[in-house]
């Protein structure tokens, strides 16, 4: 006969353990979500009354009441406009070369390990690299172009690795089918491999871009000035970007308290952009689920 309770001490212990494990795990989730909620709500509360149309469409100003981030948003967007194609082309080309052309051997492994390592290098280091090469050596100063190229270096490893994974996931039988039709390697890559790998490549690239939007350190290292009062006109102009502006406003909030509200409002704008990018990555991924 089955005992409804007690009688079986070991089973009792296992059931208690089973339940407490669940509590421990859900507690971890609550900690993460709780902190996120506190963070978001405090930022949103601080930004209330500051984040309005005027804030989005005005230029920077020392006067907190009149200050706006039109130029800052423009700076970030212009940087993206250069960053996205440069990174996508370089990253995908590298991934194709590594996956389709290089024989799997010591060269392939060394390059692969190095790329993985690069994606763990602190962003300040990439800032120094950008400062040396783009700002000083090529004389680009702290222009949008210099910033974009530096950021491109920073997210290239992410894009390369995700593109490699996407290319690797294209089943070999599709390549075989193409080669057996008399297709050259490039035709096979262009008409079979890339179309199948594209959703994965785009997802990885979008995640890379969202990293670049949020990064502060490299831009500060290449010398973005603390306050710029005019709009950037071309990619050779000095500029400021959202995270940098958040950084400076937070620093200066010791002097002018309202700057903290401006920073909060800017954070909301930045988070909205990040959310949009990440959601589009998720949509892309689910929309193009593989079906072979």
């Amino acid at each position: 006969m089955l005992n409804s309770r007690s009688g079986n001490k070991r089973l009792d212990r296992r059931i208690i353990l089973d339940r407490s494990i669940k509590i421990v795990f859900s507690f971890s989730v609550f900690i993460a979500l709780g902190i996120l909620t506190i963070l978001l709500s405090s930022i949103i509360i601080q930004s209330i009354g500051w984040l309005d149309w005027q804030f989005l469409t005005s230029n920077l100003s020392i006067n907190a009441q009149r200050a706006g981030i039109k130029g800052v948003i423009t700076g970030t967007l212009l940087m993206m406009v250069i960053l996205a194609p440069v990174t996508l082309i370089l990253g995908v080309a590298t991934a194709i070369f590594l996956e389709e052309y290089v024989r799997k051997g010591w060269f392939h492994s060394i390059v692969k390990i190095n790329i993985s390592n690069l994606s763990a290098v602190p962003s300040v280091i990439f800032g120094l690299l950008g400062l040396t090469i783009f700002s000083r050596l090529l004389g680009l100063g702290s222009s949008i172009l210099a910033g974009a190229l530096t950021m491109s270096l920073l997210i290239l490893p992410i894009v390369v690795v995700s593109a490699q994974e996407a290319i690797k996931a294209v089943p070999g039988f599709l390549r075989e089918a193409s080669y057996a039709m008399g297709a050259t390697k490039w035709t096979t890559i262009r008409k079979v491999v890339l179309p199948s790998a594209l959703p994965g490549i785009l997802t990885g690239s979008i995640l890379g871009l969202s990293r670049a939007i949020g990064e502060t350190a490299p831009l500060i290292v290449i010398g973005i000035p603390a306050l710029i009062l005019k709009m950037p006109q071309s990619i050779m102009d000095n500029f400021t970007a959202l995270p940098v502006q958040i950084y400076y406003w937070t620093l200066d909030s010791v002097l002018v308290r309202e700057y903290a509200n401006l920073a909060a409002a800017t954070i909301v704008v930045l988070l909205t952009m990040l959310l949009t990018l990440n959601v589009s990555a998720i949509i892309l991924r689910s929309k193009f689920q593989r079906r072979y």
Partner: protein
Amino acid sequence: MAKTYIYDTKKFSLWYGSKQALKDIDLKIAANEVTAIIGPSGCGKSTYIKTLNRMVDLIPSVRTEGEIIYDGRDIFDKTIRVEELRTRVGMVFQKPNPFPKSIFENVVYGPRIHGVRNRSELEDIAERSLRAAALWDEVKDRLKDNAYSLSGGQQQRLCIARVLAVEPEVVLMDEPTSALDPLSTLKIEDLVQELKEKYTIVIVTHNMQQASRISDMTAFFLLGELIEFDNTEKIFRQPADKRTEDYITGRFG
């Protein structure tokens, strides 16, 4: 009646690294016949058929000796362009492998990469190839559907249509029905009979009934060697070699 031979394999050997997969194969394949290659797994039959259109090139560390004459030249000759060889020698694989594109795009893949741009010409080719692969009636109203919406047997016939679209001389089939149900298998076997009017067919199969049903000539491979090659009827009625007999009577394999 004298046969025209399309392939002449002369003392051909192949190694994967240090492992020898084919040993001194001598084999002539006649035009407009179905040549079946049978043998237990690991006997080199797949390797041999993949050599005929040099798909073995895709495997690193492959080394060959001897020659395979096709159209008067050794296919391993340095001046042979493998893309041209593979256009003239099509291949159907074990598992149906359509591209994740529409049915239409699958069929016209070959013509497209070989430079056919004209839309109505592509449509003609698609219809002709799908008819030849006995698939037209089933898909004519859904050419824009994804190829993976087809059943396995239909997918395999689509792959055959895709090969026929580039008008090859030879169609190589590497166990084309091993992933299919009996009904689809029958359809493909019937198709093979029709296709040999226009094409030379080499088919690898582990199904001996299939070999006896559809082929004119049968080659029996064992451990990388060609044990026996003769008329299919002869092979299945009175095999000359004891090992062939053991295999076709199911004593091993």
